[in-house]
């Protein structure tokens, strides 16, 4: 294994320890022990545990957003198909490495106002993927002003529910549901259901 920098070890420690104990119960001593660094070194790099946590969090979010954007940009076809590619990449990335996501959803709330604003900003970086729905939808210009922000919130909410129920590994199965939640605000439920069925070849779980 490649020797990692002290900073990388501290960031990995923040993810591991906060994931295990929660943000409130995590101490700087926990972080230095897990990372195998001295307290002095820790404070040379970060002001406090929150700064370390936020750096770890930013790092994880950055990788996730880049993976989603890359898949979305690389996909061909009309908006629903490219949105599906972006969402599939997001679910796959979160299923493979759920700890940063759980941290983002659960611990960022506990880590105080600065962390919370950061989470909002990060999620909104996915806006372009959603905003194109406005151009795609026949009546896109008449939609409420905050349609994209809400659509993103709906997708994030469905993912959060799965993570909180401990079903991170099964996130890829959520694709029809998150695609429906993405498309519906722009093109309505009927057209969204048709697109989901057409593109995925799979249908979301139906009401009996």
């Amino acid at each position: 294994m490649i020797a990692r920098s002290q900073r990388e070890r501290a960031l990995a420690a923040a993810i591991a320890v906060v994931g295990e104990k929660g943000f409130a119960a995590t101490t700087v001593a926990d972080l230095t022990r897990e990372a195998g660094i001295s307290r002095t070194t820790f404070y040379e790099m970060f002001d406090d545990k929150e700064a370390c946590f936020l750096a770890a969090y930013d790092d994880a979010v950055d990788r996730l957003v880049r993976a989603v954007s890359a898949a979305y940009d690389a996909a061909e076809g009309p908006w629903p198909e490219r949105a599906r590619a972006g969402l599939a990449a997001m679910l796959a990335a979160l299923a493979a490495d759920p700890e940063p996501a759980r941290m983002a959803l659960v611990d960022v709330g506990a880590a105080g106002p600065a962390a919370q604003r950061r989470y909002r900003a990060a999620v909104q970086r996915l806006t372009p993927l959603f905003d194109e729905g406005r151009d795609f939808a026949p009546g896109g210009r008449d939609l409420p002003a905050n349609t994209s922000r809400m659509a993103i919130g709906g997708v994030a909410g469905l993912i959060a529910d799965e993570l909180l129920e401990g079903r991170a590994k099964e996130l890829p199965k959520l694709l029809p549901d998150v695609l429906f939640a993405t498309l519906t605000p722009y093109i309505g439920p009927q057209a969204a259901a048709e697109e989901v069925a057409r593109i995925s070849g799979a249908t979301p779980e139906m009401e009996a």
Partner: protein
Amino acid sequence: MSPTASPNGNGIRSQRSADDLGGLIAQERLPSGRADLPEPLIPKSQRERILMAMADSCATKGYGATTIGDIVEPAGVSRATFYELFRDKEDCFHAAMELSLADAMGRIVAVYSPDKPWAATVRDVAAAFLDLLASRPAFARMALVEAPASGDRGYELYASGKRVLQALLDRGRDDPMEEQGIPTSAGRAALAAAESLIVGQILAGNAERLRELLPDVVYITTVPYLGQDEALRQSREAEKALRAEG
């Protein structure tokens, strides 16, 4: 953050068996609604002063960083008084959450009628809820931002309030104008979407302008069940009503 089902999965229960709002609230073992809380909230007791100070501190520095000193000082009570009334910080937080939920349920009960059409119920509940949050920004933030992340009991209180809203919303499925291929998760996504917009506004420090979000909230919560045209119509009506109010 938008959990709707508790870890033991009893989120389903409320939408199936309860047939009125009082039943839903009772099922969640929520404090029965209080419609008697004044606006602005004027604390009548040391206890209420402490609960308000807790909410204020959550808003400024977050629940995790809040100390007993942050609460007793602005509340103008001694530490001894605090510990006579509450076991610890967590106990106080849960009491503040219970007060918020009682307040919220009171507002919802006040506008709810079983005879009202579903779309009108959604609109009126959304308006009442936005008004309540706007009038108590610190409590709004505590209930929607801090509580979900605060651990078992705080999360459970948040989730139980949300299940009541979810159950009201899911009734749209009983009489859908469009019914083919709507996934069971549609109502959950709709509520999470509205919540996310509201929380974003609160975090941006614009809680007092939450009412302006009514057309957006009405649209996103009705579109899965009413279809786009009708949801847009409902949303525009809400906007017109807002403008008429000035």
